[in-house]
């Protein structure tokens, strides 16, 4: 054993490696991405790692490997599980042989996600056990325990960390390589009664699953990480527990547990239950916890899972305990918990006998990391003295080729009735002013079909769908087939920057590299589109503005499905060109600023200037400048 400073996701990865994981597959998504990347970096030569084309593919791949006896892990973010939900729901009825851990990272806030969905529900829905770590150290140990449970009970299990656990760092104790388990898969054994899902098998296995999960409520009551504090013999906090507090308790789990323990350091220690397996719920332990209490405050993020379970258990066992939490408005229904919001909630709970829901924190402030909502203790006069702070929404990087692509389409379609259907990736940021080029965004690959839907109802609208290269492979191809088959009129814009940029530049089928470090044939987006039957497919560099605008004009009004592939690499994966300069001939029309919104261009002392540390020399601004006052970089001006 030795100590290392690890990110929560890296701790999970090292835990999987220590368990002898044989195969890992996933699709990138914040906050889960670093798990697979860390395994790829530290894996033994016998471990297979891949970025699959999407989460469904990853889940099915891992299922196959687990059928063959391998220890496997699938990694994704919470919305990725929606994509993988089809194999997920059936897989539990079939079961596995080698241990399978489904790593799904939830994102309270949400910090960088479409939804605040709670994977603990998916665990209950799919009937698979779920482990919910509260820290990097715990996550490291839990992965290893999860493989044991998975194999013992023949079921995939969830490991569900949240953003602050995934991206928190801690100095933790980890195994030395000599202590790692070596797991040797014993191979797939043909048995159609076991591996082929049919109604009869589902019926028989359903009963077994329900019986197993009922048994697990007892087993998990003994699990060391489901725990009641203070432990037997442990001293309570610095001051003695007062009479009223001795009949109050707190139930919590995940990162909120750590906030509760920090708060209780300076308060009276009250009976606290940490729930590390939200499904199956440790029912016996909960009864022990609840017995003798009058009131319990549930502190958790996303949905009130613990709160509902405890309410159910109180009913089932006729326990006269009032359960508070999100449903009673004592804890914010949405957004992240913070150290401050948890302290406020606990203080209100312990000091007021009849707690009333007045201390709900502001989820927006918490989500943005803005601590201004935590200013409530400061007096109003003090707060008003704070100068107005700059708002910094995320924007496309200086030199981002997506800016040029959006601008070209915008210029080409000036004065036309259009809809611009966006998708998931960096290019969602094309919605920001001044580009304002994303009218819709729903989920991975949705833009293509939404554009078709709008077109069916408004035939006079010129319909565009924008999709990134990684998203194209992940979930947009079926949308193209749908459009071609059903003879839609639309233009597909593929924003091909040769990487999965938003999540930190992962390879994908179009990049010609795999996570195993192999160089492979690139899957050509152009060929895929031609293969489907898209007749007009143009590939151009969006940084050549005139050509890009002309191409869009030429293509947009053609009947049927057309595609333009804007191909230019992400600025983060290629060396920059020399920065541009603004000459004294600048007439201060600010067109470069108001048209493009590039973060490298700013006004100081009344002069338009370019920040050389940000400018990548993309030259888009020089092509927009009416007086050619901007030069340098990779000049596209003829």
């Amino acid at each position, binding site marked *: 054993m030795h100590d290392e*400073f690890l990110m929560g996701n890296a701790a999970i990865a090292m835990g999987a490696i220590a368990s002898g994981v044989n195969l890992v597959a996933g699709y990138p998504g914040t906050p889960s991405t670093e798990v697979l990347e860390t395994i790829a970096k530290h894996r033994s030569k016998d471990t297979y790692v891949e970025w699959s084309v999407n989460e469904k593919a990853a889940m099915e791949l891992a299922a196959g490997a687990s059928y063959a006896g391998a220890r496997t892990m699938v990694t994704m973010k919470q919305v990725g599980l929606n994509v993988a939900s089809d194999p997920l729901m059936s897989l539990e009825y079939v079961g596995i042989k080698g241990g399978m851990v489904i790593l799904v990272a939830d994102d309270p806030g949400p910090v960088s996600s479409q939804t605040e969905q709670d994977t603990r529900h998916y665990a209950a829905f799919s009937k698979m056990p779920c482990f919910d770590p509260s*820290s990097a150290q715990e996550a490291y140990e839990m992965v290893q325990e999860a493989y044991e449970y998975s194999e013992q009970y023949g079921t995939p299990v969830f490991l569900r960390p949240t953003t602050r656990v995934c991206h928190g*760092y801690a100095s933790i104790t980890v195994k030395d390589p000599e202590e790692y388990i070596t797991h040797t898969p014993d191979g797939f054994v043909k048995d159609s009664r076991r591996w082929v899902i049919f109604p009869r098998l589902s019926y028989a296995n359903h009963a077994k699953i329900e019986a197993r999960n009922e048994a697990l409520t007892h087993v998990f009551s003994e699990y060391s990480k489901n725990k009641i504090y203070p432990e037997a013999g442990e001293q309570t906090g610095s001051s003695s527990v007062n009479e009223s507090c001795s009949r109050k308790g707190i139930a919590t789990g995940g*990162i909120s547990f750590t906030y509760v323990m920090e708060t209780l350091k300076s308060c009276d220690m009250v009976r606290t239950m940490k729930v590390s397996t939200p499904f199956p719920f440790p029912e016996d332990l909960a009864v022990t916890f609840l017995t003798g209490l009058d009131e319990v405050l549930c502190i958790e993020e996303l949905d009130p899972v613990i709160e509902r379970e405890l309410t159910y258990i109180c009913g089932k066992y006729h326990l006269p305990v009032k359960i508070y939490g999100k449903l009673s408005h004592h804890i914010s229904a949405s957004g992240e918990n913070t150290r401050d919001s948890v302290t406020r909630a606990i203080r209100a709970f312990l000091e007021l006998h009849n707690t009333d829901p007045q201390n709900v924190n502001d989820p927006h402030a918490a989500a943005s990391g803005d601590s*201004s909502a935590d200013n409530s*203790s*400061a007096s109003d006069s003090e707060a008003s003295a704070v*100068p107005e702070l*700059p708002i910094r929404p995320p924007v496309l990087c200086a030199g981002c080729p997506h800016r040029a692509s959006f601008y070209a389409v915008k210029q080409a379609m000036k004065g036309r009735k259009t809809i611009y259907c966006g998708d998931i990736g960096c290019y969602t940021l094309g919605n920001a002013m001044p580009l304002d080029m994303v009218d819709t965004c729903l989920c991975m690959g949705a833009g293509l079909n939404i554009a078709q839907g709008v077109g069916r109802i408004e035939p006079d609208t010129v319909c565009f769908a924008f999709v990134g290269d990684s998203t194209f492979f992940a979930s947009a191809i079926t949308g193209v087939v749908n459009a071609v088959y059903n003879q839609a009129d639309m233009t597909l814009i593929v924003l091909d920057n040769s990487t999965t940029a938003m999540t930190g530049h992962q390879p994908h089928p179009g990049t010609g590299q795999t996570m195993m470090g192999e160089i492979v044939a690139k899957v050509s987006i152009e060929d895929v589109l031609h293969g489907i039957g898209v007749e007009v497919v143009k590939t151009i560099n969006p940084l050549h503005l005139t050509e890009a605008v002309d191409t869009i004009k030429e293509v947009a009004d053609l009947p049927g499905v057309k595609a333009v592939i804007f191909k230019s690499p992400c600025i983060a994966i290629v060396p920059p060109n020399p920065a541009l300069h603004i000459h004294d001939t600048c007439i201060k029309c600010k067109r470069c600023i108001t048209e493009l919104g590039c*973060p490298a261009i700013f006004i100081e002392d009344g002069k338009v200037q370019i920040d050389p540390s940000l400018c990548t020399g993309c030259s888009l601004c020089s092509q927009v400048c009416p007086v050619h006052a901007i030069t340098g970089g990779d000049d596209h001006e003829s």
Partner: protein
Amino acid sequence: MNRNIVLCGVGGQGTVLASKLIAAAAMANGISVMSAETIGMAQRGGNVFSHLRLGDNLYSPMIESGTADLIIGFEPGETVRMLPFLKPDGYVVVNKRAIHPVTATLTGSNYQGQAMLDYLQSRVSHLMIIDGDAACQEIGSAKVLNMVLLGAAVRTGMLGITEEDIKSAMHKTLPEKFHALNDRAIDYTR
């Protein structure tokens, strides 16, 4: 001795590396560390922060407001944003240069770094303002702002680690060809 530290700035300024070096230096001295970083969408020009906690008996990587011993601010406005985390009598090391968000340039909003610095001056008893631009120019690299601020932070005494600890952590983290440059940056406020 427990320490709570907040590092804040704008995506791309090097807050994460600075936070990792403090952590590495503390761990080399046998001190336990927890930290939390902003990762993801906010990195694209958004405000970023790290919470860093050194010491024993830690549960949460996040800091409660009013409990930070030190804020290392890479940008004046972001430092004001994080000020509610500072404990009374806490220390602030702040870079002078304001970064104008692209939205401010578009809307013509009047974001002034000096107003932020004035506000800090009126609120913080232990404030050190660093002219990061001048420092980087003198040292000869635009990339050493984080090391300049780190050096100044060490000198507040609030990190509980020495200049040598930080340098040795940096030497272990960065390629050798950058050592001399970054040593000079760490020494800048000496």
